[in-house]
Structures are given as structure tokens and as C-alpha cells.
């Protein structure tokens, strides 16, 4: 399996505070890689750095052979990386249709993409004219994913997509991630729920103090729960 995304020696700062310390990881094509770690470990910053939203002071981020750190933040999604931020970050005053349109505009996708995305989330078809801020939490998460999938991305970044959702919605999100893997989309998933990780991920990278400490397969994680205890602090 070749690499979809490679991060090497990444250093990122918030002001003068260093958050990522030479972080390195690899996302293989078509896999779901989960980032696990305590709050403040640097998981979200890693995703933001990939998107160019937090500038990299050192290191490289390559999408295939293309260097992303030299691109302006607004050119990263055009290269084929889609981002579903923590807390969804929908354009709450806009309608569902307008949020989807923003996604489609990013890589100049058209009606076929829109239809395919709405087939994945049929519930949104009935809500196209509704203001997205008035959707339920689960529906908002679906819309956030739908908006990102309108890019037809090679790499999808999901930041805690199941946060605060009821079990039926969590199941729907997991099912969608699994479907995307079948379609060859490579995904980095930041998740706090270990059960969610075990059900959808292929490999897990543990992040601690801004460094990628260890990467293991999900099978290895199942066989030795001590990994989780060590890096996340829960069983």
C-alpha cells in the first residue's frame, strides 16, 4: 500500500509556544488512521497543520509527492485534502444547500458530486433550504461531512466526529467512514472514544506532547489494551 500523506519532523507553534515537536506519521492510501492522545497532546493541531491553518515552522507534509507546507492555506483543500473540524464549524447562518455549495466550489465539482454526497446522507435532501444552525447535532455532523466530501478528497481529516452525538448518529458516522474506506478515501480520524476507533480504524498513532510516540495496528491494540492506558489514561 503506497502512502497518501507523509508528515516528517513537523514543528508548529502557537505564538512562542511549541505545540508539535518533530511529529512524523504516515497515512497509507485507503486506510483509516486514528490519532489518539490526551487533551492538548497536539491531535487537532496536527490536522490544522496539514490544512495549513497552523503554519509549519519546520518539517514537511507531503500529499503523495506534493509538498503542502509551501501552499497557501486556501490551496491545500484544492490539492485534495478535506477537513471536518471539531465542533463542525458549519456556516450556521447559511442554508444546508449553501454549505454544500461552498464544498462543491472548492474543487469546482458539480451536480454529480452533489447527488452522490446527498445519496450518502439522504436526510439532508429534505433540509436543503433549512438554516444549518437549526439542525440537530447529528444532522450538523452529517452536513459537515457532506460539505467535506463535496471536494471528492484523496485525504479526509475528521476531528472528533462523534463528539456529543447519540448512539444512532455515531453508528451512522462509523458506517460512513467505513464506506469511504471502501471507496479508497484515506482518512485521519481524531477520536476520544476507543470503541469507535477499534470499529473503524486500520492503525492507531498515539500522540503525546506533540510527538507521535507509537503506531500500532488495531489488532495489536485489541490484543494489548495497555497501549491505551499508557497514552490516553483510560482502559
Amino acid at each position, binding site marked *: 500500500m503506497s502512502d497518501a500523506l507523509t508528515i516528517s519532523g513537523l514543528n508548529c507553534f502557537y505564538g512562542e509556544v511549541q505545540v508539535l515537536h518533530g511529529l512524523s506519521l504516515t497515512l497509507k492510501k485507503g486506510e483509516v488512521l486514528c490519532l489518539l492522545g490526551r487533551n492538548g497532546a497536539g491531535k487537532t493541531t496536527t490536522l490544522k497543520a496539514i490544512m495549513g491553518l497552523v503554519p509549519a515552522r519546520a518539517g514537511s507534509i507531503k500529499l503523495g509527492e506534493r509538498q503542502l507546507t509551501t501552499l497557501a492555506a486556501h490551496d491545500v483543500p484544492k490539492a485534495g485534502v478535506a477537513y471536518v473540524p471539531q465542533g463542525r464549524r458549519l*456556516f450556521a447562518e*447559511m442554508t444546508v444547500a449553501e454549505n454544500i455549495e461552498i*464544498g462543491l*466550489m472548492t474543487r469546482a465539482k458539480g451536480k454529480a458530486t452533489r447527488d452522490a454526497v446527498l445519496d450518502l446522507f439522504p436526510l439532508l435532501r429534505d433540509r436543503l433550504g433549512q438554516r444549518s444552525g437549526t439542525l440537530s447535532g447529528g444532522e450538523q455532523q452529517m452536513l459537515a461531512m457532506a460539505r467535506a466530501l463535496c471536494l471528492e478528497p484523496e485525504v479526509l481529516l475528521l476531528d472528533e466526529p462523534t463528539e456529543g452525538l447519540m448512539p444512532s448518529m455515531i453508528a451512522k458516522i462509523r458506517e460512513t467512514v467505513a464506506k469511504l474506506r471502501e471507496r479508497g478515501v484515506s482518512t485521519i480520524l481524531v477520536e476520544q472514544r476507543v470503541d469507535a476507533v477499534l470499529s473503524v480504524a486500520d492503525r492507531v498513532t498515539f500522540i503525546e506532547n506533540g510527538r507521535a510516540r507509537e503506531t500500532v495496528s488495531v489488532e495489536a491494540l485489541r490484543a494489548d489494551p495497555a497501549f491505551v492506558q499508557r497514552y490516553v489514561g483510560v482502559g
Partner: protein
Amino acid sequence: MAFGPHLLLAALEGLVTSAVLALMALGLSLVFGVMRVVNVAHGEFFMLGAVLAWWIASLVTGHPAIGFLLALVISPLIVGAVALVAERLVLRRLNYNPEATIVATIGMLYIIQQLALTFYGPQARPVDAPFTYRILFPWFGYSGYKLSIIAASIVLLTATWFVLTRTKIGLVMRATQYDSETAQAFGIPVDRVYAGVFALGAMLAAIAAVLIVPITQAHYLMGMDPLLLSFIVVIIGGLGSLRGTVVAAVLIGLSDGIISAFFSPTLAKIIATLLVAMVLVFRPQGLFGTASR
């Protein structure tokens, strides 16, 4: 003059003020709404528009309409270009920091004002109206040009509303307004949107100035009063709300026209300021604004 016709005359004068104020305040409101920049130099873009209108009109011989129409096109373009330069050289370097940009735009205000004083002079200079047709009501005659200002403002406000709500450019501007970081994550070049919005805001002020300059004359200090009234309008209407800006402009313009006619212009300003104070106390987000994020 009887009360009814007097009221009609005052209301017409108020509507002309409203029309100009709505355009001017819309520019201020767009800049704040999208960029979160309080542009204290906005009144100077208005002044620059009027001064350039005089300069352009004075270069053209023949029917006044030719000079006026050229000014209506060229003056906002020049002012837009000045705003682009200011955005690139000043606001972008300050990373659009809300506090720093207030101080920076105060500096821009004085630079533009003093440049106008140096090169244009302290005189107030007239620009001929493009036509002098008078509409005859049963009680009085009224300037057809003044009514055309109201019509032009309605057309421009409608066009702006259409662009903001029905086009991809508007979608991009609104996305940037709501969440600039997420907008970037969807391929929107936020810096370019900011530059475009700042230029658009300045151009709206310049258009307002060109429209009003045949009535008021161009003067290097003429930007201060419209700036104050524009702040009043956007605070009452709600920063970033087009609908609020228009409603507040009509409210302030009409009250200014009517109270000035029946009492005094000073009382009109006092009431407008009181209205702002009441809005700030009871509805800080303005009549049509949404609560702060």
C-alpha cells in the same frame, strides 16, 4: 407653507439623506461584518470620492452630465484602488487585528485628509448636477436630480443585496464573514476577499459622495459628519446586516430631514445619538444584528 406639504418636503429631503447614508453605511457595515475592521477612515473615502468627482468634472468640457457620469465611474474606481493599496500596506500587515486597525485607520484618516488639503485646498467647490429638471408638485417644485439620487441608491442597494445573497461571490463573502478559518479550509482566499471587501466598501462611499456632491459641494472636511452618521446607522441597524443598515438609514435620514425642518438640525443629531445610546443599552447587537459570536 401648510403642514402637510411642509412635511412632504422635509420627508423628501430626509429620503435623499437616507439614500446617501445607506450607501455610505453599507460600505462601513460590509467592512466590519466581513473583516471585523472598524474603518475610521471611511469618511475620507467619501471625501476623496467627492474631491475626485470635482477634479474629473472640471477636466471635461461640454454638457455637465458628461463630466458627472465620468466622475460616477472613474472616481469610485480610483478610491477603490486607494483602498486596495491601504489594505495591502496597512491592514494586512497588522493581520486585521481589531484594535490595531482602529488606530491605523485613524492614521489613514489624517493622511488622506491632509493630502486633500495640500493638493485640493481648503475651498468648497461645486460640481454641476447632470440635469436640472424640476418636478412640480401642487404645493412646490422639487429637484428631479435629488429624486434620482434616491432611485440610484435603491438600484445600488438592490444590486448589492443580489450579489450578497444570490451569487457565488456573495456566498464567498458571507462564508468569510461567518468563519474565516473554515472558509480557508474550503479554498476561499480570505486575504483576497478582505481586499475586495475593503475596496468595495470604499467604492460605495465614493459613489455616495459623487451622487451628493452636486448638492453639497466638495470639501476636504466633508467626511466627518457622514462618518458619524454612518456609525450611528450601523450601530442601530446591526453591524454586518444589510437590511438593518437600510432600515436604520431611512430612520435616521427621515428623522434628520423632518426634525431639521420643523425644529433644528442640532435637535435631529441629539435624537439620533440618543437612539444609538438606547440601542446600545437595550439591544447592543442592533435592530437586525445577531448576537456576537
